[in-house]
């Protein structure tokens, strides 16, 4: 997984965001999405530790220990942004004010199950992810298509503890974009530059259909 691949995922994901949306970006690839929001689109980035209007990472020398995001990184605050306590933050999240949440994962499957907080020998924790996938209107999983050892992350059935049952709406990898259909199941809608339908089929254990109007070389 090269930095280019991660940026490619983030850039494609940024095009999903709509003007005026409140969005929560998880650690890792999702946080990169902030760098690719198209001109003319105003997105309010919320971080669950208690801040809206999260701006770019603080330039060196301007870091404020009391102005950080949920990944503990020093950030800037955009005009209109504000601070609040954790209970208020999760009222926003569960109460339906967060339109989109983008998060990484260890596994995701064709039923929209997401597993991203624990694997054998490594306990990480769900943080606010369980609340976010239950509360946000659209849940995006942004992930490398395969794990570092080459094993599938888009699996037939999640075997790790679930973060959310049936919550994933869109999966974006460096190779493909899958969107959940209203009737259930994921459809392959886009294939990234340099990849083919056959190649996607070979590295995806998750059940999916190919959309009638699947776009090749889409991003």
């Amino acid at each position, binding site marked *: 997984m090269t930095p280019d691949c991660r940026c490619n995922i983030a850039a494609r994901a940024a095009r999903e965001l709509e003007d005026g949306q409140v969005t929560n970006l998880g650690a890792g690839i999702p946080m990169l999405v902030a760098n690719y929001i198209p001109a003319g689109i105003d997105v309010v980035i919320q971080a669950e*530790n208690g801040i809206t209007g999260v701006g770019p990472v603080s330039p060196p020398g301007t870091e404020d220990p009391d102005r*950080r995001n949920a990944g503990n990184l020093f950030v800037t605050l955009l005009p209109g942004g504000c*601070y609040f306590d954790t209970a208020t933050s*999760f009222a926003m999240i569960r109460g339906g004010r967060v339109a989109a949440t983008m998060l990484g994962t260890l596994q995701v499957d064709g039923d929209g199950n997401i597993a991203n907080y624990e694997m054998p020998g490594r306990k990480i924790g*769900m*943080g606010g992810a*369980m609340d976010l996938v239950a*509360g946000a209107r659209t849940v995006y999983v942004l992930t490398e298509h395969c794990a570092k050892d080459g094993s599938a992350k888009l699996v037939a059935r999640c075997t790790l503890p679930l973060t*959310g049952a049936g919550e994933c709406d869109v999966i974006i990898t460096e190779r493909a974009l899958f969107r959940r259909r209203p009737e259930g199941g994921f459809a392959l809608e886009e294939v990234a530059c340099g990849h083919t339908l056959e190649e996607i089929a070979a590295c995806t254990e998750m059940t999916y259909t190919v959309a009638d109007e699947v776009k090749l070389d889409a991003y």
Partner: protein
Amino acid sequence: MALNKMIPIEEAVARVESGMTLALGGFLGQGVPLTLIRALKARPVHDLVIWSNDGGYGDDGVVELVKAGMVRELHCCHIGYTPAVGRAVEAGDLELEWVPQGNLIEMLRCGGAGLGGFLTPVGVGTAVEEGHQKVTVNGRTYLWERAVRADVAFVRAHAGDIVGNLCFRGTARNYNTTVATCADYVIAEVEHAYSAGELDPEKVHAPGVFVDAVVRADVSYCGVRR
């Protein structure tokens, strides 16, 4: 005459005894009551039951108490930045309960507010369900989650007065306003201390009525200050 709650930190942390439940404000490295946590390390207490967002950040925070062998149970939502906490769990030295972040804060909020619990959609269909009664309201399934109250709470504030009114700054507010309500004995470490009447009452985030003791924070923790 205002009640002066400013006391020496040793006197404040002496309220913590072995086996007690301790609630902590703070999120990773933000607004963490590190002065109190470090003062507690000098006390001969063990088997603590801790409610906190996380296991700390790097070498700072709850992880210090875990390494000192003082913690029996940790109820939190993240230990990804403190591998030593994960190792203690794997070794069987520490009992860990995963609590989703929004459920965690609401459990403490209910405990502080005299409520018995709440219905949450978060965790349905996951391992969090275990041991929880399910309730259906208007067709949606919820878990019945319990309220939590602690014996002692530690919070960190940017400013506080001698009667315990607290003001927070930026994202250091996080759990602190809620944790300040959820224990029988609440200790606030404050970066800046004021007399009664000096804080703008419109800017107080946590009323002093909830706070039992105020101590000075070590401002060298959590980065350089203004």
